[in-house]
């Protein structure tokens, strides 16, 4: 290779670099960083709602789909503009801390206890509390998300209610992964696990796991939108975050949430709640 070849390479390199830089130079205040849970993205709900929001408002949404724990941690540091999460206790802590504000109810679905159809611990037709106690007594394998997600927080709460400390037990394993991957592993290992209904329904055909317990009031999975406090975080796009939160509670979007998933799964994945009373008040 001679010198002019290298020169040509250099020039084309500079051109490519310039073309990569250009799209990054969008106006910053137009971007809204939404920190949310994997379930809202993996179910496909956000793919339906976000283009609508971008079209209506001109904002560009950057969806960072992580566990609720990480999403709330990003909010606490002002590294997101708006949060859509499902970990009520941690959410209340964020608002009490002053970082989050204007926490509003968006929707709910529910958690289900799933496991192999053989049901080795015999948990079918028992309450959530008895189910977990039976799993522990039978030392049947239970997979925990173990990732500080909303589902993980809910699961820990259920163990606490059942007065069992599963941590460190050989039959209790933590995946540290998302819901979809955890369900896949549970199917392979014929283990029990706690899942949100949406992700389970989306994966059901490929899993061979069945719902063994559902419908218990303690298995409600509640999603809130939280804005960030402008005074605390001058760099946060509070106007964009507010616009997205308002969008989620709007009538039209609530209807979209209600209808989402019916065509594919035969039943809705989420139930809109913007007009419902705050359920946490009654629970404590």
């Amino acid at each position: 290779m001679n010198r002019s070849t290298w020169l040509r390479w250099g020039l084309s390199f500079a051109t490519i670099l310039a073309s990569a830089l250009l799209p990054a130079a969008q106006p910053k205040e137009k971007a809204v960083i939404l920190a949310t849970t994997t379930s809202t993205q993996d179910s496909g709900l956000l793919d339906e709602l976000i283009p609508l929001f971008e079209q209506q408002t001109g904002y560009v949404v950057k969806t960072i789909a992580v566990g609720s724990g990480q999403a709330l941690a990003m909010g606490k540091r002002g590294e997101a503009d708006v949060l859509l999460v499902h970990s009520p206790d941690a959410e209340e802590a964020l608002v009490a801390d002053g970082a989050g504000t204007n926490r509003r109810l968006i929707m709910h679905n529910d958690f289900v206890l799933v496991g192999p159809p053989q049901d080795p611990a015999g948990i079918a037709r028992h309450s959530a509390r008895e189910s977990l106690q039976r799993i522990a007594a039978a030392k049947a394998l239970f997979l925990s998300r173990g990732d500080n997600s909303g589902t993980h927080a809910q699961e820990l709460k259920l163990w606490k209610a059942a007065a069992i400390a599963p941590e460190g037990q050989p039959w209790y394993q933590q995946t540290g992964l998302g819901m979809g991957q955890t369900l896949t592993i549970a199917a392979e290992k014929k283990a029990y696990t706690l899942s949100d209904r949406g992700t389970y329904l989306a994966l059901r055909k490929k899993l061979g796991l069945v719902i063994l317990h559902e419908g218990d009031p303690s298995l409600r999975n509640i999603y809130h939108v939280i804005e960030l406090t402008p005074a605390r975080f001058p760099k946060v796009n509070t106007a964009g975050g507010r616009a997205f939160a308002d969008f989620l509670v709007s009538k039209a979007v609530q209807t979209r949430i209600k209808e989402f998933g019916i065509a594919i799964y035969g039943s809705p994945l989420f139930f809109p709640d913007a007009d419902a009373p705050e359920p946490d008040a009654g629970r404590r």
Partner: protein
Amino acid sequence: MDLIWEGLRKALELLLTLDPEVLRITLLSLKVSGIATLLSVVLGLGLAVSVALNDFPGKRLVIALLNTGMGLPPVVVGLFVTVLLWRNGPLGFLGILYTPLAIILAQAVIATPIIAGLGLAALQHLPPGLRLQILTLGATRPQMVWLLLKEARLPLLAAVMAGFGGVISEVGASIMVGGNLKGSTRVLTTATVMETSRGNFEVAFALSFILLVLAFSVNALLTHLQQRSRPR
């Protein structure tokens, strides 16, 4: 096993129908990892040359550090780069987190030590007298460096391929600093992770096959360059 065939079929279908989303993801992967590799070639070879041609105290320590850097876990790089680029972080004013540029930056951090480490080994493997010989023939220093690089081009191109292979296949850093944003920072590896967690295994397999074909094509091209200019 069925899934793999189904994935292969799906990959062909997505490629033949020129699915716009898949095309965009594939081109972005190529662009991002290509630019990151080119950046790393400039930085890595610069490092390799300056370490190979100079004697200084602590040289062995620097070489050991470079060699350690070749095994830098992408997820560690992703974490560091994310924290640096956070809007409240030291480089937050750039506003490039969750853009393709952030992925390029993180991937360059991953590939630079690979190319520097392997490049350094290549240069140090040249006969020690060669440098003096070139200089006594009246070459200037830049000419001497150029001749040395040319002499070592075989292992140097192998170093470039290792660097490219390292970044086109990594997912940990891309997903953290890019955020897997549809239409903006979604690359083949992050899309594969997402489709897997969505349970769309055949799409995930299809994306994997496209990734393998892409990696093969780029490496075939580099191998062609390498073998064409092979010293006779």
